[in-house]
């Protein structure tokens, strides 16, 4: 007899965090003992502007269910203007993903400063909840990357 194990859906979430604000914000969330789900995998980037739209697509291809980009607040970029460019790029990319029929809400951009540990944890909790409600990413995944 086989016992069917009921597995809870655990989303895979990639968070690109800029080195100067959001990564420090995540650090603060940790040292302040604020909780956010372990489903969030953080990738540290020098600046939100470093995130090429291909990174986002690649993350989805490799099985991510949601991708979130965090950077310094507009005007506070360590490199002065990086996040302004990132903002335009991401707006266009998200609009295109919406256009080809990918569920809205799988992608998100949030500005988190180094002092906003609480915002970081709240954002991640909220985002994970959203992805849980959307379910597994089937529209953007690559079949070969499924196990």
């Amino acid at each position, binding site marked *: 007899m086989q016992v069917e194990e009921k597995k809870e859906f655990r989303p895979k979430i990639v968070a690109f965090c800029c080195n100067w604000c959001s990564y420090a914000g995540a650090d603060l969330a940790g040292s302040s003992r604020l909780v956010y789900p372990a489903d969030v995998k953080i990738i540290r980037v020098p600046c939100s502007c470093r995130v090429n739209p291909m990174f986002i697509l690649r993350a989805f291809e490799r099985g991510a269910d949601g991708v979130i980009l965090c950077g310094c607040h507009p005007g506070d970029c360590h490199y002065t*203007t990086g996040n302004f460019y990132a903002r335009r790029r*991401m707006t266009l990319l998200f609009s295109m993903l919406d256009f080809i029929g990918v569920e809205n809400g799988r992608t998100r951009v949030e500005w988190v400063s180094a002092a906003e540990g609480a915002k970081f944890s709240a954002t991640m909790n909220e985002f994970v909840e959203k992805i849980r409600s959307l379910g597994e990413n089937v529209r953007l995944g690559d079949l070969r990357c499924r196990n």
Partner: protein
Amino acid sequence: MQELIKRAKELLADGTAARVLGWRRGDLPYNPEPAFFEKEEDFDQFVYDGFCGANLSKMMIEACKLEGKTAVCLKPCDTYSFNQLLKEHRVDREKAYIIGVGCRGKLDIEKIRAQGVKGIQGVSGAEIDGPDELQVQTIYGDKTVPYASAMLGRCHVCKGKEHMICDEIIGESRETQDADRFDEVRAIEAMSPEERFAYFKKELSKCIRCNACRNACPACSCRKCVFDSNKFDSAQKANVDSFEEKMFHVIRAFHVAGRCTDCGECSRVCPQGIPLHLFNRKFIKDIDELYGEFQAGKDPEAKSPLTDYRFEDAEPGIVGKRG
């Protein structure tokens, strides 16, 4: 066409240009191909008619590396692409002599076939100053097709009859716009996400990854292309998964976002008839709505929207709110 040939021969003879970039007769009566003309006798093959849809701007990148000036025939919409390449320092204005050629809309043989005309052996009336009706010779006899009904999709949203940049103009141009540029994009936006997903899956699954769209695109002018890298999964091979086509086409369109002049070459050259211009046009529509109207290649001084910013730009979350 005779006037154009005469002038091109003159330019070669008086040393203004070392070669002329134009179109020569192809294997079939309706597929002329781009070609260089260096000697007077070469011009026996020269052709310029309604089927000369190819945008010669991109070939100027290579032509500018050759010795001497190149005289190039550009249609009004091609001059936008040339302007854009000039802005990106990919072509050399000193090495180009631009002959602005007249245009009254370019033809698509598939549009003629779609009207039930089979076994085409020849088409007459496709000349630049020809009549409003095409005479199509087929193995089943002659057929008549209205010129406007056989035009390429891009000519129905013509950008205008003005040449943005040229040294001289030969022949009359006519504006052929009879539809709104963003109608097709709006129609897709009005669908539900499921329908949109199904639509693009249907269209993009036809893709055979021949890279014709990339090779023809005047904005795709990188010396080294990401799709030629063997480190990249979707490089130069058939698709194994449906996501790859989407990834390829979204990236291709993103790489030219803000620089695409909407010349429509991608859709014209696609052997599978995928409406690739929809991706580019969606980006143009978004840019126009969010960052102000912008036509790449119109103003050589204007900053491209993706290399510019304003403090009060919309946040990416606007995508979800607009619906």
